[in-house]
């Protein structure tokens, strides 16, 4: 008999359908289907003999990879490296497509093709705030005694989430990253201290020197399921945050919840290239803002730099902005061209909940962190850890895969994907 075999810890579900939270227990086979799967879902639920319900969220924040087993099974994991450990070549591994919902065997629900989000006349700040509050309130009800952390850089995105987390989780702790390269305290750390103080949040400091941070590289490449420098650098920051939380939190039986301010940069096209030692890094496609936004959001299918990296320390990441994706995608194109678009929108979404200085602060990227010496980017460049090094190391960690395979595994921000089917299951999945 064929079946589904899961290797390692899956990302699980903290999914949102606009009204209610869908956890793993809600995504059992032959039960009702959620109308949409926003938030996080990377799950495979079902009894040992099947059937199984396979679910992956709309943006692809939860990852699910699969390879065909030798006896017609589907072997599933949240990381490709887990399937490589089972003897599969990287070339044989596919991602479950994002926005996937299906029972194996049995197929998926009848679903209409998703329509293009209508553009709003003005940014829908109230809808964004309502979605964020509803999602956080539902999580607070579902996990009343879970330890809660919120990553805080002192920028607008993380400070906004921190302010709402304060309202819904009174015992939350903020955690702030800093790379110690022997200089002064980073602007991020100073800003995080100030925001935490004003919000009344205790602050946990995650500080690493260069050697300590680079010691996380293999974990980030494996748990991040990606080798591209921007994502690896962000993953290193997250690894330091995760390791610090795990050290502070001595409750191995439950996974603390870690809230982050990710995704607002994709939704508002708030990225730019960085220059270090005269070389440009993190180059972006030369596209109009609306097209670039589409590309960045599509690209969320790839890289497990948040959920996967924190998962490596048995922590559950929550990215609340995900549940407001339709509201963000309805933002008119002209608004995306405004240099102060994020400040304007955050003022409407968070208002006076945020300290005034946060609105005035120049943007600092987590990887560079406003630190002297180029932050994590500078550290990696100085140590010769460039794109080629990362590709080679990723291949080595994935069974010695040929480097040419990488271009087929991730292309244009998408993992090579296919719907998993059990041998003999001819039903078309949803």
């Amino acid at each position: 008999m064929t079946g589904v075999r899961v290797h390692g810890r899956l990302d699980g579900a903290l999914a949102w359908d606009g009204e209610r939270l869908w956890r793993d227990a809600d995504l059992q086979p032959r039960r009702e289907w959620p109308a949409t799967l926003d938030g996080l879902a990377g799950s495979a639920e079902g009894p040992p003999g099947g059937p199984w319900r396979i679910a992956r969220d709309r943006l692809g924040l939860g990852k699910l990879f699969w390879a065909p087993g030798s006896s017609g099974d589907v072997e599933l994991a949240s990381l490709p490296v887990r399937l490589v450990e089972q003897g599969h070549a990287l070339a044989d591994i596919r991602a479950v497509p994002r926005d996937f919902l299906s029972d194996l065997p049995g197929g998926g629900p009848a679903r209409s093709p998703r329509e293009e989000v209508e553009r709003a006349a003005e940014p829908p700040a109230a809808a964004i705030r309502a979605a964020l509050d509803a999602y956080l309130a539902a999580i607070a009800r579902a996990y009343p005694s879970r330890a809660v952390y919120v990553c805080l850089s002192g920028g607008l995105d993380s400070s906004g989430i921190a302010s709402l987390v304060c309202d819904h989780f009174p015992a939350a702790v903020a955690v702030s990253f800093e790379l110690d390269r022997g200089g002064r305290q980073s602007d991020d750390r100073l800003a995080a201290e100030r925001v935490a103080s004003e919000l009344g949040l205790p602050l946990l400091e995650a500080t690493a020197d260069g050697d300590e941070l680079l010691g996380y590289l293999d974990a980030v490449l494996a748990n991040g399921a990606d080798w591209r420098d921007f994502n690896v650098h962000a993953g290193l920051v997250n690894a330091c945050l995760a390791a610090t939380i795990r050290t502070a939190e001595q409750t191995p039986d439950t996974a603390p919840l870690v809230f982050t301010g990710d995704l607002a940069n994709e939704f508002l096209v708030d990225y730019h290239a960085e220059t270090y030692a005269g070389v440009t890094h993190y180059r972006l496609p030369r596209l109009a803002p609306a097209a670039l936004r589409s590309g960045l959001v599509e690209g969320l299918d790839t890289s497990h730099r948040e959920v996967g990296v924190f998962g490596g320390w048995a922590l559950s990441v929550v990215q609340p902005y995900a549940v407001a994706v339709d509201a963000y995608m309805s933002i008119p194109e002209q608004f995306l061209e405004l240099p102060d678009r994020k400040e304007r929108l955050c003022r409407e979404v968070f208002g006076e909940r945020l300290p005034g200085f946060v609105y005035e602060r120049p943007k600092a990227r987590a990887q560079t962190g406003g630190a002297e010496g180029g932050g994590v980017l500078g550290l990696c460049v100085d140590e010769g850890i460039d794109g080629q090094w990362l590709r080679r190391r990723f291949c080595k960690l994935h069974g010695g895969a040929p480097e040419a395979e990488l271009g087929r595994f991730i292309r244009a921000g998408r993992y090579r994907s296919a719907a998993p089917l059990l041998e003999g299951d001819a039903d078309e999945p949803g």
Partner: protein
Amino acid sequence: MNQGEVAGSLETFLRESFAISPTDPNFGREVDLFDGGYVDSVGLAETLAFVEEEFGVSMPDDELLSDDFATIDGMARAVVRLLGGS
């Protein structure tokens, strides 16, 4: 629009956008653009935007992630298929 015309248009775009020398002996319509280092992930995003604007087609994942989509001729075949040409 036939495959040759699409391929020609793509080749012109790629040569101009990514500063590929007209005398580069290794470049051609059957060359793997990624293995050859002519197009990286950022360049591919720009190429997809060009395809969408120029030919009015949005590339589905199965075409995008196929081995065939690594060359100019392969991309042209995909565009023609989506245009209903074959």
